[in-house]
């Protein structure tokens, strides 16, 4: 699980950023920063669920919970433990 944040960062970079975009960090605001729109959150949620064999309920998959790689890692770890 140590590389969870790296995996998410890599996915977000490949999935949502254009080739000439500025790189993002673990703290970069993804939703509120306009990098990931609410439509596209779906693929991120599904990617996490498939990758870590978890189910994130819709009421937990909020724009706030997905707003940075750090926050996503917290959320994923909670469900992996459960």
């Amino acid at each position, binding site marked *: 699980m140590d590389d969870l944040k790296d995996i998410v960062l890599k996915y977000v970079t490949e999935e949502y950023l254009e080739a000439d975009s500025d790189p993002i960090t673990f703290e970069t605001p993804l939703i509120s920063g306009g990098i990931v729109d609410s*439509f*596209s959150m*779906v*693929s991120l949620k*599904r990617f996490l669920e*498939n990758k870590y064999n978890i189910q994130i309920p819709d009421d937990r998959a909020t724009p706030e919970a997905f707003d940075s790689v750090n926050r996503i890692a917290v959320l994923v770890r909670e469900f992996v433990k459960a």
Partner: protein
Amino acid sequence: MAYSDKVRGIYEAQLQGIRDAGIFKQERYIHSPQAADIEVEFPAGAALKKVINMCANNYLGLSSHPDVVRAAHEGLDARGYGMSSVRFICGTQDIHRELERRLTEFLGTEDTLLFPSCMDANAGVFEAILTKDDVMISDRLVHASLVDGIRLCSAMHDTFKHSDMAHLENKLQLHADKRFKVVITDGVFSMDGDAAKLDECVALCEKYDAMLLVDDSHASGFIGKTGRGTHERCGVMGKIDVITTTFGKALGGASGGCVSGRKELVEMCRQKARPYLFSNTIAPVVVAGVLKVMEILSASTERRDKLERNAAHWRKGLTEAGFVLKEGDTPIVPVMLFNAKLSQDFSKALYDEGVYAMGFFFPVVPQGQARIRTQLSAGHETHHLDKALDAFVKVGKKYDILGKSKQEIIEKFGM
């Protein structure tokens, strides 16, 4: 009074914010029929000015074609002005069904249903054929009307990078567990003028058992050897499950649109699509006009051939003059300026030179990709294009962008 001074003030402030951001839209009043040469009042109250129209969707030059106008007159006399009904109560005339048959034949599909507009077709089609057990996977640059239709549907939604087939394939794999998967794309993308890779989309849809929906509004009537659309160009006639398109552009330019495709899907729209069920039927006069358009297009490819020649001539002229263009071979030719203010100033200067072409900038196009979008028509003659090119060159020299690269233009004007 519910509409208090406070409420009014809030709206006034919002409108001022739009003005301050330089994105306040103003209409230009045209005092003539739609054509290559138009008479325009702009700004409001100004004397009329004759200009060459380089920004209409009048691709085939049929908006004011005498045969179409005559057919519309005859339709008006024979079937009346309005129907005062939605289609399924008492708003379907014989000519509505006749037009659906003609469109089915022209597009090479199984059945067709008319809508008041293609915006309505796109707003209604997804909710009519999909449920929460399904997924819609759309190109990230699809038209706003498709985005709205997707939002109105309970199915899951995901996107793929513009025309990136490897990314689309990833998404089809990611959503393999869904009951139905529908891939959604424009045929020709309205802002960039590039065409979708429909042959590759079809192959992926067949491989992953997905349906394909194409909005061909900027293609129907002129893309492909006989103008059937992007599916003809890509050699996949009969393999698109749903085509939506408009009569408001090449096909006469009045109004109306349709959903055309697999007969069960079309029938589901007839039963369930809300813009079809709860909005008025297309006026008989418009139906009569579009029927004449279909007759003209079925008889000859002359107009789409001329449009193709015009587009090639225009693109060659701009390229040789040293403008930066978006790559492509459709009648949508975007002249890239990158800077939003430059796009507005350039458009105004063109107008002063007698050419009507609009500047587009964020959020209509991505940040830093402002442009003048030019659109060709079969109604343009060589003298129109030569005169318009002279104006572009004159304004291009004024701003010193001819022969300059993207980087050089951005360095000079900013993004």
